[in-house]
């Protein structure tokens, strides 16, 4: 029975449709795996009763959607009605939304079953899931001869860990600077950040609104295509959501990329890049070439400035978005001393409720937006962002269909390894992914090999805006060539 949770969404869908399997059986198998996997700390709020109700309803529904009866994990950043949704922050302790996010509404309308809420970095700020109020999520992978616990990446670390350890068939993630793609790479799964505006942000706790996008984290590219379609679509409640029809992404998976032009950006070849990452990248390039694509070297000259621009823009938007956590309408309020007024209430509440990294970013954001510095920092960063986007527009107008890059500068690292490092060191994890958010483009990461220590390494493909179908097909072709089948050895 326990093997059921290892199924891919496409396999389970077919088995459910043919009546070989019920959603109740599948959901029970996942719930049982979740119970046995407490040491991964991936699921932080479990909803077994709700899951069983949803599974029974799916079994009774003969005309369900694409995800009818498929058990999923939901990142804690998504508001789910009546179920704790606290963005892994102490300041939202006890918060149970009275509404359902658009993404989870769409998934449930498609028949998906929610198993519970998944661990993450606080307010999605982090690259190792170490800023969570729930404690670290743990990577199911280990180094070959070392028992040390590794990070599943972040911020969608719980989602990554849960999918890689087969606790669920797929999970939702969100990606502001790489928070779907870096964890996907660290645990050997597939994750796509769609074009900005493809997926509604309504009901997702906001971090940096001009960069945030939700997307699926799944066991393969086909599953990503199935789940992304169910999550996507225009939403009048999100004014930046695009009024475009959602194509059948799965139908785009032909495995034929003959004549497509793949760009290899010079600027992503960084000083001190490991030989393993270089080889992985070269191997991926060769695979796409063998599949009939034309390979072209390209230049994205402003790449180097993406991370500093990102930290100005994301922190500025975060300082504004997180102003709502004031201890008045929801979440935590500090105990006040006699004589404390409303300002003390705000200051004490926010000091107690926010973790260190969140405070740091809110204050940096406050600084770059403050009088006298707004032009020098915030406006300059927005200008650099325009140039970064223009770099991509130039290569796309030169005929590039997709861009191949490494996903991360390294494999998963040990939990605690970066604790004493300069925060900038941690930010470098997102060096290959953050450009994509700044330019609003779709980006997908898929596993492509193992490093010498037996840990998965991922490659990233970046596509043209709104052409997720084409991007998924290129990723599908690469997936078939790379034949990554390794799984973490069970220790949990």
């Amino acid at each position: 029975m326990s093997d059921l949770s290892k199924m891919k969404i496409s396999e389970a869908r077919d088995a459910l449709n043919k009546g070989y399997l019920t959603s109740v059986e599948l959901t029970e198998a996942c719930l049982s795996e979740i119970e046995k996997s407490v040491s991964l700390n991936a699921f932080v709020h479990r909803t077994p009763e709700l899951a069983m109700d949803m599974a029974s309803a799916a079994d009774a529904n003969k005309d369900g959607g694409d995800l009818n009866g498929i058990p999923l994990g939901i990142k804690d950043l998504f508001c789910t009605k009546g179920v704790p949704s606290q963005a892994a922050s102490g300041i939202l302790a006890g918060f149970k939304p009275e509404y359902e996010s658009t993404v989870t509404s769409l998934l449930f309308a498609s028949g998906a079953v929610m198993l519970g809420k998944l661990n993450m970095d606080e307010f999605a700020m982090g690259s190792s899931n170490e800023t969570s109020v729930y404690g670290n999520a743990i990577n199911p992978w280990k180094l070959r001869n070392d028992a040390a616990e590794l990070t599943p990446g972040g911020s969608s670390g719980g989602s990554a860990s849960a999918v890689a350890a087969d606790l669920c068939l797929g999970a939702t993630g969100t990606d502001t600077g790489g928070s779907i793609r870096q964890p996907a790479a660290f645990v050997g799964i597939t994750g796509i950040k769609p074009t900005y505006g493809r997926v509604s942000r309504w009901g997702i706790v906001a971090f940096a609104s001009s960069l945030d996008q939700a997307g699926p984290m799944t066991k393969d590219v086909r599953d990503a295509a199935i789940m992304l379609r169910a999550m996507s679509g225009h939403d009048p409640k999100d004014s930046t959501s695009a009024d475009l029809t959602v194509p059948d992404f799965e139908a785009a998976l032909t495995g034929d990329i003959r004549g497509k032009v793949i760009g290899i950006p010079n600027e992503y070849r960084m000083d001190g890049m490991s030989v393993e990452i270089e080889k992985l990248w070269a191997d991926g390039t060769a695979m796409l070439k063998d599949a009939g694509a034309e390979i072209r070297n390209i230049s994205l000259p402003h790449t180097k400035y993406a991370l500093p621009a990102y930290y100005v823009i994301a922190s500025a938007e975060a300082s504004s978005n997180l102003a709502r956590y004031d201890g008045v309408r929801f979440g935590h309020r500090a105990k006040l001393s006699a004589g404390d007024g409303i300002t003390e209430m705000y200051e004490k509440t926010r000091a107690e409720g926010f973790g260190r990294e969140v405070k740091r970013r809110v204050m940096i954001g406050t600084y770059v937006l403050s009088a006298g510095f707004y032009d020098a920092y915030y406006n300059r960063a927005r200008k650099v962002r325009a140039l970064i986007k223009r770099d991509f527009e130039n290569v796309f107008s030169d005929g590039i269909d997709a861009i191949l890059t490494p996903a991360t500068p390294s494999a998963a690292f040990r939990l605690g390894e970066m604790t004493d490092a300069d925060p900038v060191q941690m930010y470098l994890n997102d060096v290959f992914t953050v450009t994509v958010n700044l330019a609003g483009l779709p980006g997908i990461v898929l596993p492509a090999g193992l490093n010498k220590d037996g840990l998965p390494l991922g490659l990233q493909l970046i596509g043209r805006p709104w052409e997720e179908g084409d991007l998924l097909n290129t990723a599908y072709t690469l997936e078939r060539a790379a034949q990554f089948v390794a799984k973490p050895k069970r220790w949990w």
Partner: protein
Amino acid sequence: MSIDIQTARRVAKLARIAVSESDFPELAKEFSAMLGFIEQLNEVDVDGIEPMTSVTPQRLKRRVDIVNDGGQPIEILANAPDVREGFFAVPKVVE
């Protein structure tokens, strides 16, 4: 540009986050490191470049100017830490 303790104190105040006096030196150091990283942006020639306002070329959608939500005080107040007589309660604001 390096951030002094006085600036760190001002930023914490603006952000409405209580920071204990002994933590300011470390905070100022962290801010300075971050700003040092950010200052790479000064190398970029941004003459004549408009600051990005929207990453996708679409116009923001407008909706009809009518009330389309409301009438749910119980739901609105359900998560509040302190509620009195159907209102959010806060410490005294006006003397």
